[in-house]
């Protein structure tokens, strides 16, 4: 956090800028249960954090329709066209060569390169599309202000309900999270 003076300025201007409430759990089952309950209670701007992927926690927030698969499909189709097109152009127009008496457009021999380029372009689309859509790399995140949050990469599990959620209310949400039996609930500032 910035210095005290900075903090007080923010408070004076726009009230305390709260990012959200962070509940800490010490096992994945509690996290999954809490996430399901929070979603069932109507919270939508929430996220779960864990040291390793917890598939059920991912499924507990059912609004994950991302467009990475679409990007991968487009990448693969582009790679296919590029690979097949390049070979077709090279061996029929730019530099036709008689190889074993085969026709210039010998498509079976083009398939491996077409396939490889489809995989390559699909991989690029997957990695760069993922980075573009999830906003990584992200050197700063408000959750880093929580001193406990560093344990999310070791052995603790966190559920954060963000202040932007329409249902969010400092007191009510705090009471709700406390009812989920976490180890502790902390406020996280922007």
């Amino acid at each position, binding site marked *: 956090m910035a210095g005290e003076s900075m903090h007080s300025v923010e408070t004076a201007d726009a009230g305390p800028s709260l990012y959200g409430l962070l509940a800490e759990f010490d096992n994945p089952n509690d996290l999954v249960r809490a996430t399901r309950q929070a979603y069932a209670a109507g919270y939508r701007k929430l996220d779960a954090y864990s040291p390793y992927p917890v*598939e*059920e926690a991912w499924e507990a927030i059912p609004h994950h329709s991302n467009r990475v*698969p679409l990007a991968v*499909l487009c990448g693969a189709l582009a790679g296919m066209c590029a690979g097949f097109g390049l070979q077709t152009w090279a061996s029929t127009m730019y530099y036709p060569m008689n190889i*074993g008496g*085969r026709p210039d457009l010998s498509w*079976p*021999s083009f*398939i*491996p390169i077409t396939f490889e380029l489809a995989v390559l372009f699909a991989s690029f689309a997957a990695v760069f599309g993922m980075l573009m859509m999830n906003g990584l790399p992200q050197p700063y995140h408000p959750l880093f202000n929580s001193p406990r949050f560093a344990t999310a990469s070791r052995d603790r599990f966190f559920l954060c309900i963000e202040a932007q959620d329409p249902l969010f209310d400092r007191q009510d949400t705090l009471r709700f999270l406390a009812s989920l039996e976490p180890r502790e609930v902390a406020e996280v500032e922007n």
Partner: protein
Amino acid sequence: MSAIPYNTPAELLGEMDRTRSRWLLAGLLGLAAAAGGYFADPQRFFQSYLYAYVFVFGLAMGSLALTMLNHLTGGAWGIMIRRILEAGSRTFPLLLILFLPIALGVFQIFPWAPHEVAEQDHLIHEKSAYLNVPFFFARVAGYFLICLFLSFRISRLSAQQDEHGAEPYYTKLQRLSGPGILLYGLTVTFFSIDLIMSLDPHWFSTIFGILLLGCQGVSTFAFAIMVLVWLMRQRPMSEAVRSVHLHDLGKLMFAFVNLFAYFNFSQFLIIWSGNLPEETTWYLKRTTGGWQYVSIAIMVLHFFVPFFLLLSRNLKRTPGKVSKVAGWLIFMQLVNAYWLVMPSFHERGIHLHWLDAATPLAIGGLWMWVFLGQLKQRPLLPVGDPMLEEALHSGGH
């Protein structure tokens, strides 16, 4: 999780019995038609019989292989279809009986079999140390011994596990499955050489066994998915099977569709590149006389269409949709078996015959009758498997 009542409810048993009798009826009708076809055109009968037999045999062999594979790798997908696969692998006694027509027709089916051929054809003469009738029967006996032993040993251990709990059966199953997979690989390789590749005794392809393995993988996963979705209409499977399980099975079926295409193309590309007369004959038969349309149909309808359909996550998770794709793939596998076997007999061109429909009905109907009879004998979930609880809970991989 609340305990699922594992025993198959009486209502479902009754439905299985009704379905079973319908398959028996279909099988007997097919058998009667095929028998009539034998007297009308014995040559054609044997040819049609062989392709249908190879297809159905693949279901039993694939079931055995996937059972062993799942014992080695673990995974909730295999626990959900374990009993379907075990029942499928206990059909080898029927397949042994159904091998009889092939055994009787060996001289009509296999061009290398008659003595005169080896005397006139130098290449076949050179191969006669392997391609001769007594050794052929010895090898087929070997395949049946291996499959019968593995399937009944595994089924028995699995039944003991149901009764007495996990150990030591869990470990025994794993120990048997390792060498078992190896034996399966050898069996499917030599089976493919003997029953399909030797129809063109001059021709050879080293990837052929693996190609048939890919076929069995597609048809077995497709079959297991169809039966599972059918069972999901009632307890206990309606409560046990969740979309994650279907998703995993759909992904594995998808993987085998790709593997099938990959092996097929590998074989084709190598032969096409080499362009040697003794290798290209096999493809020449399959790209002329109408067979080229079947080849293209397999490429499009067994690869491109299912590929794009099975990309969808939603489709794989929806029982009604994934089982339709599975049904389609089973049909295409039958077409593929036809395409592997028939052009070797009919190089002049494609020539459909009503026996081509009668023989799969006969063999498939009787096989389904035995399969369902085996399936209803045991609980539909492996109740003694130590991984069952986890599989029900999480659908973990």
